[in-house]
């Protein structure tokens, strides 16, 4: 082959490969041209896994199928977000039509990427007024920049479970309401065992402990993560400094991070009978509303109660707030039966009777105005305490972002370094964290 031809051939081969690759790169595209009354089988992927939860999901589907005899729903449980993501990106016949996620963190990514279909046209078509149906906080965390690609499928509110027997023993009359009270009560409830271990800890602030991811406790400060232009502003947010100072003080008051961390490593699995709160190793615990049902089912050997988590001393008037998140549901972009899929999503998320039944069955907070007011809701006061947290005007959810929960992960990594005492210059490091979050966001934009 003459020498001049070689680069030409190589360029042509590369160009052809590029065309081939870009062609291969397009996953299948769905459509909303289907007739929702025609016989169809829908695939529904969700994350619920315990026998009680799976039964509740299957009961919900049975109720739906009774109302829509032409739609057959095949449900698959215990599916992680990662699996759903891969399936939707790959597309094809095996991919689900209706999907749900246990976290609101990734909604921004789902909406921006187009992976979950925009639901507004469906709502318009079927006359569902989202503003009259769902609370604003919940609508905010299921949309991104005007694209409502998900709807809330029950909500989660976070509060504080406390061991009433331990309180009585220590002479504590009521749950703490401010962070300084929290520190005193935690210290009082902490019982050491030997030089570097514990019999019981008041409140374990370590960020890797079960549900204690930093964003959940940080919600008590009501932080603003991004400025109006969408830039990270953690270094400019005064709450950030107070939050880290308080968590470190909480740890110090009970023996310090190292000892507490070592104690944490002796705990059993969060969802097992060896849960540290259930076994009395921890007496105050940040957790969601589902824990109450679990404590009842496990027949906890102590009297327990629920209260909102304390708030910073200078924001005492916001007591009653908490972190809000929830399960979300949407329609896969690749579904060929999007109108039928919408019928299922609408039933699961907006049908009052269904939402109430499902909320009672799995002890999650209802996510519609009508369901929250329903007299059929479980009257258990410890469960209802979370409704107040959800409806509290100061309660906070995480803002959606184009790259999903990447900024929450970055904050988490940073918080691990802070709690272990490896961050000296907090202000400088926070500025770097902001820069990193902004760079990650920019990188994810088209």
């Amino acid at each position, binding site marked *: 082959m003459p020498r001049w031809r070689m680069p030409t051939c190589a360029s042509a081969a590369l160009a052809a490969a590029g065309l081939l690759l870009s062609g291969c790169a397009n996953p299948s595209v769905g459509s909303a041209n289907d007739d929702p009354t025609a016989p169809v089988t829908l695939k529904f992927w969700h994350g619920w896994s315990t026998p009680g939860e799976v039964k509740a999901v299957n009961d919900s589907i049975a109720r739906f199928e009774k109302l829509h005899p032409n739609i057959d729903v095949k449900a698959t449980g215990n599916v992680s977000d990662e699996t759903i993501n891969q399936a939707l990106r790959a597309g094809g016949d095996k991919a689900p039509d209706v999907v749900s996620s246990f976290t609101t963190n990734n909604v921004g990514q789902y909406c921006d990427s187009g*992976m979950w279909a925009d639901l507004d046209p469906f709502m318009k078509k079927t006359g569902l007024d989202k503003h009259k149906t769902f609370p604003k906080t919940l609508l905010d965390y299921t949309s991104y920049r005007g694209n409502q690609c998900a709807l809330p499928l029950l909500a989660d509110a976070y509060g504080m479970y406390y061991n009433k027997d331990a309180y009585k023993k220590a002479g504590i009359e009521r749950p703490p309401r401010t962070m300084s009270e929290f520190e005193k009560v935690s210290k009082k409830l902490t019982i050491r065992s030997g030089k570097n271990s514990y019999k019981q800890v008041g409140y374990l602030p370590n960020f890797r402990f079960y549900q204690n991811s930093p964003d959940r406790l940080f919600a008590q400060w009501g932080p603003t993560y991004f400025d109006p232009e969408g830039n990270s502003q953690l270094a400019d947010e005064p709450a950030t400094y107070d939050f880290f100072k308080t968590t470190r003080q909480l740890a110090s008051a009970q023996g310090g991070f190292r000892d507490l*961390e070592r104690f944490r490593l002796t705990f059993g699995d969060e969802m097992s009978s060896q849960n540290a709160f259930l076994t009395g190793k921890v007496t105050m615990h940040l957790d969601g509303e589902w824990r109450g049902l679990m404590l009842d089912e496990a027949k906890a050997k102590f009297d327990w109660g629920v209260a909102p988590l304390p708030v910073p001393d200078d924001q005492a008037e916001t007591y009653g707030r908490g972190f809000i998140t929830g399960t979300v549901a949407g329609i896969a972009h690749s579904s060929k039966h999007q109108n039928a899929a919408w019928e299922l999503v609408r039933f699961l998320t907006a049908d009052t009777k269904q939402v109430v039944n499902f909320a009672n069955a799995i002890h999650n907070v209802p996510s519609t105005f009508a369901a929250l007011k329903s007299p059929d809701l479980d009257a258990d006061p410890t469960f209802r305490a979370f409704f107040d947290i959800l409806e509290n005007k100061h309660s906070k959810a995480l803002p959606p972002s184009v790259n999903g929960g990447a900024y929450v992960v970055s904050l988490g990594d940073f918080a691990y370094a802070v709690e272990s005492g490896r961050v000296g210059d907090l202000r400088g490091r926070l500025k770097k964290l902001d820069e990193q979050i902004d760079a990650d966001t920019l990188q994810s934009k088209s």
Partner: protein
Amino acid sequence: MAMTLSNPARRRLRTLGFLSPWLVGFSVFFAYPLIATVYFSFMHYNQIKEPTFVGLRNWTYVFEQMPLFGPALRNTLWLVVIMVALRVVFGLSLGLLITKIKTGAGLFRTAFYIPYLAPPVAATVAFVFLLNPGTGPVNEILGTVGISGPNWFNDPDTAKPSLVLLSLWGIGDLMVIFMAALLDVPKEQYEAAELDGAGAWSKFRYVTWPAITPIVMFAVVTGVVQTMQYYTQALVAGKVASGVNIGPGSVIQPGYPDHSTLTVPQLVYQMGFQNFNTGAACVLSLVLFAIAMAVTMLLMRKRSGLLSAED
């Protein structure tokens, strides 16, 4: 009219025919993925929307703005140097020892080989359980003799050495390869060396070592390539040791504790399949590929140098 081919052309065609299975495999499993990786490294692509050309943005992001790239690369190289070196030394020592044992050699061979047969995930889970600082038997035993054991997988300073210990526990594969090489060294050479008055060290230095050099080089090269792709054990160890519950709504964040066990392949997975940042994942893959190629070529040149020196 039938086409007639000249002899050289026919020969070339026949050669190509014999080569074709390899060529197909090479094209599908190496050339195409490599071209795809280069192509996507210049694209913004989230695996849903059409890829768009972004020039060098992914490259500058990885090298200038991705804070985890440095720790991941350092961890990977640390593991390559320390883990490969210790595995070779330990595997060779074990091979030498076992070939010398007269009675019960089979028992020792089995004992050292069995851990290698355990699936990587199961072996890692078991090892993390053994080294749990709070409840693990290793620290409890150390405690009985008055030693306060380290936090092993839960301390950034000891997490990587703990991974090395885990890899030494599963040394069975290398031990068997070295044993085969050691048993292949002609006995006459040892006898001749003994007649010349060589001691144990001299026999190893002047008889054993030259004979097994190609095998050592093989172990080093394959070890480097494997460790460059180190993923499963680090991810599982971090996940289990952290004790963080992984539910359907959560994702495993690799590198626990404090990114001390984060490797480049884990970062590739995180970027590509958790963040759907395909372009950055491709850049990371290419960096890893370039380093692996460079190190392998260097070692191969060294090896050919060694062999020609012997010749």
